[in-house]
């Protein structure tokens, strides 16, 4: 092969130039595009198409009927409730963490950033398990909680905690590098000119980072609504009570209710498509992930 420069390449009458092998470039180009598209079609597009094919397999009426199931509606409600609690909390956290980390110099900053990113490196099952170890029946606070008739695991608080854990870094890790890069000049000018801290935050910082914020919140929401492993561990799978949409999909699927399972899955797939659209639109404003 062309492992070494061909002997006398420069001395030859016909000097090799780029473009001379255009037919070879064309073959490589065609090969690359074909391999990429085939791979993506097999592992990505076929499964996506299957979701809708299976959901609509028995016709539109059956598809729509599956949403009339009270357990399905309860699952949708629970997922929305969870996201409505988790996303705002993690957004506030992300803004606070980014302000502290990007605006100030202090010791141990890189450790703090690493710790914030930690949940991304941990298996969802372990993320759920930690709350079972703390609040489960045989957990550290299990007996105490039972005495006071408070349920965390196998109830809404546990689902919220587990979801919060897995989506914890999503907003912060968008905002921290963005704020660091945009610098403090405008904020310092605003403070020097007499603006208060909150005013500076709302009138100067927030508009500067708004696209990063949207980006982080959208990804956080997608993960919060779609989380399976962590929530599965803490939920207890009580139908109509502690089943989120992804958990409900599992139950319907295992009962061979494929139309029902894929109907719920189709909603989550549409959510994923919507997430990608918002993400692409944000990127079109010139926002780049760092």
């Amino acid at each position, binding site marked *: 092969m062309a492992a070494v420069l061909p002997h006398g390449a420069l001395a030859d009458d016909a000097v090799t130039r780029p473009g001379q*092998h255009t037919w070879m470039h064309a073959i490589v180009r065609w090969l*690359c595009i074909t391999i990429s598209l085939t791979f*993506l079609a097999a*592992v*990505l597009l076929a499964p996506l198409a299957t979701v809708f094919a299976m959901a609509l397999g028995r016709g539109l009426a059956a598809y729509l009927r599956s949403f009339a199931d009270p357990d399905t509606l309860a699952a949708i409600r629970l997922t929305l409730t969870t996201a409505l609690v988790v996303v705002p909390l993690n957004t506030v956290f992300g803004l606070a963490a980014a302000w502290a980390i990007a605006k100030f110099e202090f010791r141990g900053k890189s450790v703090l950033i690493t710790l914030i990113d930690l949940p991304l490196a941990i298996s969802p099952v372990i993320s759920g398990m930690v709350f079972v170890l703390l609040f489960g029946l045989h957990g550290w606070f299990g007996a105490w909680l039972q005495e006071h008739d408070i349920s965390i695991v196998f109830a809404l608080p546990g689902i919220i905690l587990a979801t919060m854990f897995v989506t914890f870094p999503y907003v912060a890790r968008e905002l921290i590098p963005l704020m660091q890069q945009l610098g403090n000049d405008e904020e310092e000018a605003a403070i020097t000119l007499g603006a208060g801290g909150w005013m500076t935050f709302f009138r100067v910082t927030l508009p500067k980072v708004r696209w990063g914020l949207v980006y982080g919140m959208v990804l956080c929401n997608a993960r919060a609504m779609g989380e399976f492993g962590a929530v599965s561990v803490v939920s207890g799978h009580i139908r109509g009570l502690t089943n989120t949409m992804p958990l409900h999909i599992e139950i319907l699927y295992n009962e061979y209710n494929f139309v029902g399972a894929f109907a719920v899955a189709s909603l989550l797939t549409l959510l994923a498509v919507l997430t990608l659209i918002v993400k692409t639109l944000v990127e079109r404003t010139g926002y780049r992930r760092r």
Partner: protein
Amino acid sequence: MSFRKASVLPGFGLTFGFTTFFLSAIVLLPLAALVLSAASMHWGDFVRVVSSPRAVGSYRLSFGASLLAATINAVFGFIIAWTLVRYEFPGRKIIDALIDMPFALPTAVSGIALTTVFAQNGWIGRYLEPLGVKVAYTWIGVTLALTLISMPFAVRAVQPALQEVQRELEEAAETLGAGRLYVLRRIILPTVLPALLTGFTLAFARAVGEYGSVIFIAGNLPMKTEITPLLIVIHLEEFDYQGAAALGVVMLGISFVILLAINLLQAWGRRRHVRAAH
């Protein structure tokens, strides 16, 4: 104050305090509970749980399939990133946006969809069945699911690095008579190697912990198609919290060691790259 540098901006106390409080409450204390639960076991019990044949079988599958998936993604991720960066073709922008689909798609959805496509009578499975290839409910299915969910990591890591490869360098080499393979081996691959390793690491880390998409396609037979996260769930369902915590600690430990090794490899790659540039 030595802890932090002076600044005219207000709000350090509030935001730093809130950040550390929230981080400790939601992430650090729960994780400490995990480690302490495992640490409170008798050493003998701990060893018995984590070295049982069923546990060892699950490590083999979890880490083996994840390594395989990360390798597949390194290869296809490079080709896909190359295609997206270097070629113009109809639908390129849509494909580019679709790469992130596995991030946005809930794992349970990828799980049931992949299983349906690759089951015996599925769209693709029915063509593999006569060839004697069984995907669903075997280790191949596990690898496939892990490949899907970790694919964006590899592509997204390599893409910016490929954009940075200096085209002038390639053209100069070709003008001097180097063939495409030579250019690929000596100019392009060295430039993107660190990014490729990063993508590999991230894909691997994500795949090892994956649960949702795998349990549908795996079949979940002990010793054969049972991943470690599932074994943890089984221990939890039997209220064996300590056993679950022990397995969790082992998983964290092995992942940590592998990531550390790959990070060292990466640092070595960077050093080599810098030296070669001078």
